[in-house]
C-alpha cells in the first residue's frame, strides 16, 4: 500500500501541460494508432513436409496511444496458423495477445512498465516477428525460449545509467508461464536484468554491447520440491551506415550468446538438470537502396551436460525492400542436427504493413 502511494505521488507530482480529461473526443485525433503487419510464407523443406506450401505465418495487429498525461499503452494481438501435426494438415488459427502493456510517460529519468510484454533479455527476444532479421526466430532462440519467445505478464523498470555514453539498465519481474523455461508457479517470480550499452564510434559506426541474466527459483514448502532456471547472455552488434549515400549502403554484424541451466526435483520431470547454450552470428550487407543480403551461422550445444547432438545451422537470405511498408525475402536454411541428412528448407516471405507503423528499435 505504501509502495502504491509513493508510486502514485511520483507519477502525478510531475508538472505537465496535461490535456483536459474532459476532452474525450475531437474527431479521430484521440483514436489509437492502429497498424497491421501480415507475413505470408511459402515453405518447401526436406522435413515436416505437412507444413510445406503457402500459409499465413503471422498477422500482428498493433494499437498504441497515450492513455492520459501519465501513461501510454500498447497492444499487439497476433494471429498465426498452427503448425500441422505429422500426417495431418492444420488450418486452425491461434489468437494470442503477444504484448499488452502500459508504461509511464511523466516520470523523469525512468520508465515503469506493467502488463504482458516480451522479456528484455538479449538482443532479439523482444523483437516482433515482422521485424526479425530472418524469417524464423532461429534454433538458439527456439531452444532457449520456445517457438514464440519469452513474453510474460509482469512489471519492469528501466533507466539510463549515469554514464557518458548510452547505457540503459532494465529490471523486470515476470509471472512465469513459459513451459520451456519454468514450472508453473503462482508464488515465485522470474527476474530479468539487462544492461545495454551503445557507443558511436563515428557518425557512421556504432557498437552495441549487452549483458543479460534471468533467475527463477521455486520452492514448495509442503513437498520440499525445488525448481530453478538460470539464463545468461551477452550480445555484440556493430553497425555501419555512411552519412553520405547512407540510403544505399550499410553493413551490420551481430552476435548473441545465451546459456541456459534448468534444474529441479520431481515436478520438473524427475530431477532434471539440463544445461545448454548456443551462439548466433549474422552479417547483413546492403547491396543497393532496396536490396540486402544476409548470412547467419548458429551453433547449439555449448556447455551442455547431456549426450544430445549439437546443431549447426547455416542460413542465407536475400531481401527486396521496396519501401518501409513492404518486403520480399527469400531464405535458405541448412540445418545439421546429427541425423544422416541435414534438413534443407527454402522459404519465401512477403511482409506488409498497413496503417500506423511505429519506428523499429535500432
Amino acid at each position: 500500500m505504501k509502495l502504491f502511494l509513493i508510486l502514485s505521488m511520483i507519477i502525478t507530482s510531475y508538472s505537465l501541460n496535461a490535456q483536459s480529461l474532459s476532452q474525450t473526443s475531437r474527431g479521430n485525433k484521440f483514436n489509437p494508432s492502429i497498424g497491421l503487419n501480415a507475413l505470408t510464407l511459402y515453405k518447401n523443406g526436406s522435413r515436416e513436409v505437412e507444413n510445406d506450401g503457402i500459409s499465413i505465418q503471422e498477422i500482428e495487429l498493433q494499437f498504441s496511444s497515450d492513455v492520459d498525461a501519465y501513461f501510454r499503452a500498447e497492444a499487439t494481438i497476433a494471429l498465426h496458423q498452427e503448425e500441422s501435426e505429422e500426417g495431418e494438415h492444420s488450418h486452425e488459427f491461434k489468437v494470442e495477445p503477444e504484448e499488452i502493456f502500459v508504461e509511464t510517460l511523466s516520470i523523469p529519468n525512468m520508465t515503469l512498465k506493467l502488463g504482458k510484454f516480451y522479456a528484455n533479455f538479449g538482443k532479439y527476444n523482444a523483437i516482433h516477428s515482422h521485424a526479425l532479421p530472418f524469417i524464423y526466430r532461429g534454433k538458439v532462440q527456439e531452444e532457449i525460449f520456445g517457438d514464440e519467445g519469452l513474453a510474460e505478464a509482469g512489471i519492469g523498470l528501466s533507466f539510463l545509467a549515469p554514464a557518458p555514453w548510452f547505457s540503459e539498465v532494465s529490471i523486470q519481474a515476470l509471472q512465469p508461464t513459459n513451459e520451456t523455461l519454468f514450472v508453473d508457479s503462482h508464488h515465485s517470480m522470474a527476474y530479468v536484468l539487462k544492461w545495454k550499452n551503445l557507443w558511436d564510434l563515428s557518425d557512421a559506426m556504432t557498437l552495441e554491447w549487452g549483458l543479460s541474466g534471468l533467475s527463477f527459483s521455486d520452492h514448495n514448502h509442503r513437498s520440499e520440491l525445488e525448481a530453478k532456471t538460470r539464463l545468461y547472455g551477452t550480445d555484440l552488434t556493430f553497425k555501419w551506415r555512411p552519412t553520405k549515400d547512407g540510403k544505399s549502403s550499410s553493413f551490420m554484424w551481430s552476435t548473441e550468446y545465451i546459456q541456459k541451466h534448468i534444474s529441479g526435483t520431481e515436478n520438473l520431470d524427475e530431477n532434471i538438470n539440463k544445461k545448454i547454450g548456443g551462439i548466433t552470428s549474422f552479417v547483413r550487407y546492403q547491396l543497393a537502396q532496396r536490396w540486402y543480403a544476409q548470412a547467419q551461422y548458429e551453433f547449439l550445444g555449448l556447455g551442455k551436460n547431456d549426450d544430445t547432438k549439437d546443431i549447426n545451422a547455416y542460413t542465407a537470405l536475400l531481401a527486396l525492400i521496396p519501401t518501409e511498408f513492404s518486403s520480399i525475402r527469400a531464405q535458405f536454411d541448412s540445418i545439421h542436427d546429427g541425423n544422416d541428412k541435414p534438413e534443407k528448407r527454402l522459404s519465401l516471405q512477403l511482409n506488409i504493413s498497413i496503417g500506423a507503423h511505429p519506428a523499429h528499435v535500432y
Partner: protein
Amino acid sequence: MKVFSILLFLGVSFAAHSKIKVITTTTNLADLVRQVGGDFVEVESLCKGSQDPHFLEAKPSYTFKLSKADLLVSIGAGLEEGWLPLVIRGSRNPDIREGQSGHLVASDVVSLLEQVKGEVSRSQGDVHPEGNPHFMLGPSKVIEVAKAITSKLTSLDEENKENYNKGFKAFEERMTLSLDRWKKKFSNSIKVISYHKTLTYFYDEFGVDNIDVLEPKPGIPPTASHIIGIISKVKSEEVKKIIVENYFDETVAKRVSKEVPRVQVEVVPVAVYGKKEVDDLFTLYEYLVNKIGE
C-alpha cells in the same frame, strides 16, 4: 559553514551561466538556434547535413543526447515520424515530449505548402498530408521559425530575453537584406526539374518554375516510363537545369542530360554542412542561389 557558502555560491553562479542545451533534428534548425541564441545556447543536430532526415534510424545515442536536453526543436509535418517518437520515449525526459514546454515543432508556426486535401493513401508514395515539410529552405519561412525559437528560448531563460531578441533582430535584418540581393538573380523566368520536392519553398520564394520531379511519386525511385515523360517535358518546356539534392543519386539526372545536352545537372546541398563550404543558413542559400539562379 564557510565551505557550504562557497559551494552554494559556486552552484548558484554555475546555474546562472549554464547554457540552454538544445537538440534539433536537422542542421538547418541547429544553425537557426545558434543564430538566435548565440553564446547562451549549446546546440547539436541529430541529423547530419548529408543525411536525409526522412530515413534516420532511432539510434540509442540520440536518446542519450535527448535525455540531457532542455529543448528539442523538430521540423514536424511527419518528416521525423519514422524515428523521433521512439527516441523521445527512450530519453525518459518528459519535458521534451510533443506538446510540452521543452519541445518546439517548427511546422506548427509556419503555413505549409502542398497540404493534401481529400483522400490520401500510401499508394501515392511518401506523402505528407500536413503539407511539405521542407520549409527551412524558404528564407521567409525561416524568419518565422526564428521568431518562434526566440519566444521559446525566452520562455526557458527569461534572464537572457534581451540577448535572444538581439540575436533574432540581427538574423532578421541580415536575412532580409540578403533576400533582396538574392532575388535579383531570379529576374528571368527559370524552369527546373528536381529529384524530390525538397526545394519547393525555395522555388516559391524566388519564383522558380519547378516543371516536374524525377521521382514518379514521393519516395519512389525514378522508373523508365517516368523518365521518358521527363525527357519530353525537358525538351518542350525549355528546362535548363535538373536539381538533385545531394542525398539522392544523380545517375538518372545525368541520363536525361545525355539525352538533352543543353540541360545542366546541379547536385546541391539542402542542409547546413551538406557540403564543406556550407556552414550556416546564409552560405546554404547563397550556394543554392548561385546554382539555381542566373
